[in-house]
């Protein structure tokens, strides 16, 4: 597991929000950043192309607020968008909006994840939040056969007596 340098979370979050995956790239997690960029930007662009020029526009302010979660791709689509677009089938427009909403919301999650990793609190992923005993593969103190939990140094248990 490569060491993740500690960075300030605010620029990491801003970078990750503006360009999907850029927050993780900034932290040195290149593979993760590339995958996030490809999937999120790809889906957003596909949605914008599918739904036409009115997909990201002030015609749907309730969706536009959420679509801004995609950062610069949303800004680009909004800049070239047309508030009074040519008629398209409603189903196609709705599908385009859905295809832009999902990556926008996922990008907000990814940017927050990058900001959390920037502090060095969780550099390896969510699985590291639950450490396992390498010999048994189970969490410490697991009744099935994991390693016993480490004693709490703050509590003094007298021999043979109850703690009251």
């Amino acid at each position, binding site marked *: 597991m490569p060491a993740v340098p500690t960075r300030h979370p605010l620029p990491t979050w801003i970078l990750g929000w503006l360009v999907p995956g850029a927050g993780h790239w900034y932290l040195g997690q290149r593979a993760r950043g590339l*995958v*996030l960029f490809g999937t999120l930007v790809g889906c957003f662009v596909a949605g914008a192309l599918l739904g036409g020029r009115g997909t990201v526009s002030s015609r749907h302010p309730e969706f536009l607020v959420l679509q801004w979660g995609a950062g610069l791709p949303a800004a680009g689509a909004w800049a070239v968008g047309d508030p009074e677009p040519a008629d398209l089938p409603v189903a196609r427009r709705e599908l385009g909006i*859905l295809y832009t909403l999902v*990556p926008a919301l996922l990008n907000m999650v990814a940017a927050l994840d990058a900001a959390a990793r920037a502090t060095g609190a969780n550099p390896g992923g*969510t699985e590291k939040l639950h450490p396992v005993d390498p010999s048994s593969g189970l969490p410490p103190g697991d009744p099935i056969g994991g390693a016993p939990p480490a004693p709490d140094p703050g509590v003094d248990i007298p021999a043979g007596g109850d703690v009251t």
Partner: protein
Amino acid sequence: MIVTRVLEFLPLAFVLGTAMAALRHEEMPAIQRAALRNSGKILLWLVIGCAAIQGVLWIVQD
């Protein structure tokens, strides 16, 4: 109807599964494996959910 709906949501299932895999795993091969696994699971639940809704509608309308 179900097939159309599942096909519409297929790219979203792939995007969601891949993003979840990328956030959880570090190395590219692990991300790829988890992305396929996640996408398959999401798609399976989507098919089950659509079929269940379709079944309920069929019973109610009958």
